């Protein structure tokens, strides 16, 4: 049945959890494009045949006309499936640009096709340049914090550090009240 492979491709995208990606199915993608080429050839053959017979494609509704129609519809359908597959993946990749920094982790990178990698690179570069224009890191605190200060416990001995508003002694197991922005860099390194 026509359009079956393209639909499989779309189903494969659905089967992954939302926000997650699975490996770009180059194989099936190429097969669908091949199917499209086949449709185009048959479509052209039928249109030529009608021209030779001297019938106008717009007015005559013979078997050839409907054959060409079926091929045309299959092409449109396949195109829609392919576009949706690429588009929805691109959306996920765009969101990645907000959540992780410029370099993709390896386990995600190997799931992308080469053009998707390029897309991610350019997209995050655009984001970065926009943020540097604004001089503001937009990816921080996507949910507004309730309090600019947080209570943290020190997990590893660090010693005295100068923070933006105070001089703190980050001794082991000390419980401190720090500015969120100061604390974040230590938290992400699992010091706090």
């Amino acid at each position, binding site marked *: 049945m026509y359009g079956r492979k393209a639909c499989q491709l779309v189903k494969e995208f659905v089967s992954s959890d939302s926000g997650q990606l699975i490996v770009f199915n180059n194989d099936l993608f190429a097969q669908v494009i091949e199917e499209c080429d086949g449709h185009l050839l048959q479509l052209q053959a039928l249109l030529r045949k009608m021209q030779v017979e001297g019938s106008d494609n717009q007015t005559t509704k013979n078997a*050839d006309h409907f054959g060409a129609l079926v091929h045309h519809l299959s092409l449109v359908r396949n195109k*829609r499936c392919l576009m949706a597959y690429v588009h929805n993946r691109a959306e996920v990749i765009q969101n990645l640009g907000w959540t992780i920094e410029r370099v993709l982790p390896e386990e995600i990178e190997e799931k992308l096709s080469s053009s998707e990698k390029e897309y991610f690179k350019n997209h995050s570069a655009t984001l970065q340049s926009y943020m540097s224009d604004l001089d503001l890191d937009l990816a921080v605190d996507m949910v507004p914090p309730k309090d600019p200060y947080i209570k943290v416990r020190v997990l590893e001995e660090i010693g005295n550090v100068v923070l933006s508003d105070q001089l703190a002694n980050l001794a082991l197991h000390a419980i401190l009240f720090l500015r969120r922005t100061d604390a974040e860099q230590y938290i992400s390194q699992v010091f706090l």
Partner: protein
Amino acid sequence: MAQYYDIDDILADEELVPAVFLEAINGVGLFESNDTNRVEPRSKVELPFWLARELHLRQAASVSMPPCFNKKTREEIGADGAHVDLRTRCSYFYELGCKIVQLIGDKTIGSLLLVAFQTRYKEVLIKAHTAASALTPKFLSLLTKEEIKLYDAAKSSTAAFRNWRMGGPRFQKASVLGRKRKPIGEKNMHFCLPALWRIGYRLGCS
């Protein structure tokens, strides 16, 4: 086309509907069984909806009612809509119903969908708000795609409500660590209301 990239819409279009060809079609290898690459008029086939619709609109084929809207299903929905296995019949029951009614002038489909959705909606919400997750797989296997989404939304709203009643998490997650999590969508908030009502009801203060 707003829905052009909509995955669910694409998959709903893939559902098979029975159709009868009214015209002969040349050069089409639609079915593996015949070698002539020709479809004869009056041949009965099952076509995916995207193809059937266009052929129907151009009078090349005539679409008839898909089996998931047959008399038996209607009777079952009338008897106890909440426990009919709609997924195996058609996992895009509502979407296909809305699409097919434009082709077939059958006015009864609308009310069928409405009745089915009303009874099942109630059941889905009750299950999502109360049942332990161990009990639900059997119930989940009956639901269509749309109902599953509804169920998940209701489930997450219950979780959010419980969280809120307990006074929130004791430890705040550092935003750098929590950034991978997606924020809960606004639409989920709507489902908090039934939960509130029911709890109010149980406490006798409704």
